């Protein structure tokens, strides 16, 4: 394997799950998420020589979001698969009780229903631990807008997820 490929894999591999998670939450479809991530990784690999340090994860997530946007324009959305029908990939969850699964599904559905711009800010902050500045760069919005979107997303969820808190 050539050196460029090796470096790309070594730096990008640790963030593949984050890339997929973002694609999945933005598109709300496992099929679209697969396509988006494949497209994004190929674009990232081609553009890798232009990547001059900085945060690899934020860089990849920016590309994922761009791919999601252009995929959306191309297909004009297939409508999202209802979450109930999707296979849930639970993270190391030892207890797996019915109640926990129920809460998880309900929270998943509530997050999926958030308007796009609120949903992406919340996912990047709460799941991917991105800073305001990184979220602003990834989404191409001013930091002030990131802050108000986050506040709005949280306020909406506090209302709708009241019974899960």
């Amino acid at each position, binding site marked *: *394997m*050539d050196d*460029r*490929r090796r470096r*790309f*894999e070594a730096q990008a*591999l640790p963030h*593949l*799950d984050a*890339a*997929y*998670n973002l694609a*999945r*939450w933005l598109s709300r479809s496992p099929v679209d*998420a*697969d396509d988006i*991530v*494949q497209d994004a*990784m*190929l674009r990232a*690999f*081609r553009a890798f020589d232009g990547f001059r340090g900085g945060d690899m994860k934020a860089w990849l997530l920016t590309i994922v979001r761009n791919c999601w946007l252009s995929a959306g324009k191309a297909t004009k959305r297939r409508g999202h698969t209802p979450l109930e029908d999707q296979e*849930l*990939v*639970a*993270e190391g969850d030892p207890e797996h009780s019915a109640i*926990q699964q129920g*809460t*998880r599904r309900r*929270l*998943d559905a509530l*997050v999926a229903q958030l308007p796009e711009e609120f949903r992406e800010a*919340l996912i990047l*902050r*709460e*799941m991917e631990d991105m*800073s*305001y500045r990184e979220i602003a760069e990834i989404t191409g919005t001013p930091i002030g807008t990131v*802050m*108000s979107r*986050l*506040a709005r997303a*949280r*306020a909406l*969820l*506090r209302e709708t*997820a009241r019974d*899960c*808190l």
Partner: protein
Amino acid sequence: MSCEQHLNTQSYLDGELDGTAAAAAESHLNSCADCQAQAAATADLSDALRKVTRYRASDILRHKLTKQLDRESGRSPAKSFWVGAASGGGLSALAAGFALFLLLPPTAATLSQSIVDAHTAALTGGKTIMVASSNHHTVKPWLAAHAGISPLVTDFADQGFVLTGGRTDEVAGMRAAVAVYRHGNHEVELFTWPDRGAHLPESAMAKGFRTAFWKMGDLDYAAVSDVDAAAFQKFVGLAKAQRE
């Protein structure tokens, strides 16, 4: 949420402020009932959001990506470490071995190494603190919300160890809560993570950093710092003696 400072309070709770901005936000938070309610609600929400599904790239997707990169590099299929279980018996067995390995508690040597690595990485990256506060009522709920465990957090300022904030980190693949203290020009950090029955290392010195480990309740604790032996012993004594 009627307080006009609520966005600033949010920035503070998200660990986006430092220095005087953080101090100002903290003093506002201490006196504003609206913002205290917001802080509590944000912590509860953050807690709930940790239950939301984290989707992972499937082995099939990883396999497709490898193929795609092979084509892109204009080469015959390369042996790539991207592909886990998807490509044949040998690798499956290897992947199964790794999975088993991940279920076992880390060894003492891994833990020692991991604590010093996490500490030095944070120091050199200048990222020791995600939430800046000298108030353990702020640091403790932040750690509970972000690390998923509720460690004891006490300010030992009167004894010479000033609580300056907290962050989350990783110790041997486990999420850990870190309380950060200042002692003169030195940083002292207290790591906490869920006990998985690991055999904890003896106190030691590596690369100029002292480490000490102990269990309390269902949590493992580790202190790490480059302070001198006497100060380190004192800190460990204080940390071991703290109670709810």
